[in-house]
């Protein structure tokens, strides 16, 4: 049962979308059936976004002047800038690497989400107007990292933004993307993002997602990926901040020989709430996947990991591995983990492991016996713990950028 409050929020958002987009009966009825999540729903059991504002300005469709993009971004990357979820050609790099095309185009929603929810449907409703499509041509090998930089300017109002981005890699192409949430406002906001990614056969995509903000915003990110034969997809997410983050990452492995890597590092401080929901679907024989999610939680932060591996009956010779490792640093930090296996094929190797604990005493003692104070020793160890994820980033400049953010956050966390 949705509360009246969230129902009125829903209708206010719909009205704002309706002002600029016509939508037909089908979409309308899908929207009426869905509601904002409640704790009773299994998929939202540990994570309910707390809508702080009475009303939100669906600002994604408004023009907001922004003069500059955040400093400190890697300089050797191609930047595509989104202001309030809307692509800004003025702020974006004018010359694109060869093999890459950017166009306006609604999401085609050809990859069915594991969890159909109101957030996704709301995004879909406005995507018609503001969806962006990135196309990588056949055999193109793009050297430069492509950054999708999301900016939400401060307006004094609570913004609700809805970026919709689809990415298509044609056969045997390769590219490296960075999805970066930077320059988030001090005001409360909701970012309701959807990415749809399709890899054709032999394509190779490296996706780094950095969610960093000190504001108390809500970020809902739903990324759906389809991988064709022999393609290689690597997803790395770094989540820090103090707001609420929910990431739904669905990967469908639909062609033999494809491989997916999923890595996550969550560094929680303050009242940060970070929920990684991954759904990995092995739909054909001879595919592999590897997942490693790590989290360090301090302050009153909460980490949630909900990972499901589904292996279809025909998907023989699947090799899937999933691991979640969490460290709790403070008495009020919490971790909820639900790693799941659903296996319908017998000739498979699937395993998962999850641990929740603290820094090992042994190395801590060792370092202290060599003269390091406790704080330094702890910092050293949490950095080492985090580096296993960060070292998976292939671009040197992006890795340096991510490391700097992680280290700053870890310093903050171990200080307290």
């Amino acid at each position, binding site marked *: 049962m949705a509360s009246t409050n969230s129902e009125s929020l829903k209708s206010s958002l719909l009205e704002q979308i309706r002002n600029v987009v016509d939508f037909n009966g089908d979409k309308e009825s899908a929207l009426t059936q869905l509601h904002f999540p409640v704790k009773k729903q*299994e998929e939202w059991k*540990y994570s309910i976004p707390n809508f702080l504002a009475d009303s939100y300005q669906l600002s994604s469709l408004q023009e907001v002047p922004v003069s500059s993009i955040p400093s400190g971004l890697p300089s050797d990357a191609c930047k595509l800038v989104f202001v309030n979820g809307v692509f800004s050609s003025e702020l974006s790099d004018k010359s694109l690497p060869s093999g890459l095309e950017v166009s306006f185009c609604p999401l085609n929603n050809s990859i069915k989400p594991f969890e159909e929810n109101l957030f996704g449907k709301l995004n879909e409703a406005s995507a018609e107007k503001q969806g962006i499509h990135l196309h990588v041509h056949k055999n193109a090998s793009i050297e430069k990292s492509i950054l999708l930089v999301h900016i939400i300017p401060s307006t004094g109002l609570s913004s609700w933004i809805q970026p919709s981005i689809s990415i298509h890699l044609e056969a045997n192409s390769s590219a490296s993307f960075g999805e970066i949430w930077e320059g988030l406002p001090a005001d409360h906001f909701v970012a309701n993002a959807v990415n749809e990614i399709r890899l054709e056969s032999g394509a190779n995509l490296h996706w780094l997602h950095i969610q960093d903000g000190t504001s108390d915003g809500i970020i809902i990110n739903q990324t759906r990926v389809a991988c064709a034969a022999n393609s290689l997809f690597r997803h790395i997410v770094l989540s820090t901040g103090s707001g609420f983050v929910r990431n739904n990452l669905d990967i469908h492995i639909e062609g033999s020989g494809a491989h997916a890597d999923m890595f996550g590092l969550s560094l929680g401080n303050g009242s940060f709430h970070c929920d990684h929901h991954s759904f990995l679907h092995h739909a054909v024989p001879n595919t592999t996947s590897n997942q490693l999610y790590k989290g360090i939680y301090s302050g009153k932060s909460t980490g949630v990991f909900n990972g499901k591996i589904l292996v279809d*009956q025909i998907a*023989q010779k699947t090799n899937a591995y999933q691991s979640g490792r*969490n460290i*709790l*640093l*403070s*008495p009020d*930090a*919490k*971790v*909820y*983990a*639900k*790693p*799941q*296996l*659903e*296996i*319908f*094929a*017998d*000739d*498979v*190797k*699937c*395993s*998962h*492991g*999850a*641990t*929740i*604990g*603290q820094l090992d005493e042994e190395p801590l003692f060792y370092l202290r016996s060599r003269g390091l104070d406790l704080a330094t020793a702890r910092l050293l160890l949490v950095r080492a713990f985090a580096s296993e994820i960060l070292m998976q980033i292939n671009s040197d400049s992006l890795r340096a950028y991510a490391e700097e953010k992680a280290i700053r956050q870890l310093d903050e966390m171990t200080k307290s």
Partner: protein
Amino acid sequence: MSKETEILEEITGSEYKYGFTTDIETETLAAGLSEETVKFISAKKNEPAWMLEWRLAAFALWKTMTPPQWQNLSIPEINFQDIIYYAAPKQKKVVNSLDDIDPELRRTFEKLGISLTEQKLLSGVAVDAVIDSVSIATTFKSKLAELGVIFCSMSEAIENHPELIRKYLGSVVPVKDNYYSALNSAVFSDGSFCFIPKGVRCPMELSTYFRINTANTGQFERTLIVCEDDAYVSYLEGCTAPTRDENQLHAAVVELVAMENAHIKYSTVQNWYPGNKEGKGGIYNFVTKRGICMGDKSRISWTQVETGSAITWKYPSVILKGNGSVGEFYSVAVTNNFQQADTGTKMIHIGKDTRSRIVSKGISAGKSQNSYRGLVQVMKRADNARNFSQCDSLLLGNLCGAHTFPYLEVENPSAQVEHEATTSKIGEDQIFYCNQRGISTEDAVALIVNGYAKEVLNQLPMEFAVEAQKLLAISLEGSVG
């Protein structure tokens, strides 16, 4: 490959051995469930008013509840009005000696491998034999009474030990806990009660054997075990039912209470009729089992070997309230043909320095679905809690499914929680290695499955291990050396 499949079918497809029915005169209440049914059962057992009130309150609550939907099971709708809630073999009201038991009933239990004859009693095991809705005999009662151990049917306990029953019944599994626990609280007909007084180490295994005989009967038994400070008991539960085309419901509630430094070891070999190869018939086993480690340093261990029932919905759990208490769950769950199982445990860490260990081995064959579902919860004040869970699934054939749904909820930073799970099939290289030593593929599969489940089988008391081995179609280790 097809040969391997054939052999697997042969191994897993052996006939259900306990499918016979006993032809005995039975007093049966007409099918249907109402307040009158509850009153009838209570009256039949000469229960005191408080007990009837308790039942009626449970019934009223049950009517407002709905069956749980979260499990990974497809459960056909059950019409609770079609079930018979009371069926009892007609025999002399009070059996003073085991020799007075109806010979037909005695033969029934003998066929099940349980002797109720004074001379042939298994030494070291006291048995409470329950058929349909009533307990027909309890052995070694007087011998146990010398030590202050109470071991009797639940009906007798309500009559003779009302103070204990009123104190503990529903204290671990509240009536409102779930749909089936509420139903059980309203209509439970019998079951076993064990009470081990302070400092007593129960010298023999206590055991209850549950048998459903009458068609269309639901069995709703209630078991309560209380171990006072420093006491120990090992309790065994066995179950079988005749082969029938109709599904039958078994909705039991088991409650365990362990006081300071007490240890309760609860073992189950569940061999309910699982239905035929086409998935027709079989028992629906919807059971709520929970123990509470009330006192410091107490310990509760659940061991289960699940081979039977068409649908299993069962999560033997431990509430670790006392500081330094220990909870254990060892499980082998085998599903075959069209069986479905959703089983696991909950370990709720409340006290400090509590430890829990979960070992679950799922084996799926045929077209069955086998799910492990477990919760490890470390509450805010549960400093230094430790948990280790190992959940493995073995798939025999590619038409079945194996699923793992662990929930880890940690709200205390000093906790250490570790969960590991694997899914695999029997290695072809392992089978070939056995073949090369002259062992047939059929025996090799049995041997390997046995090895796979060994960690759990080792937890069973000797008397039960034998039955469990046979159930897994395996000759167990340890007979030599």
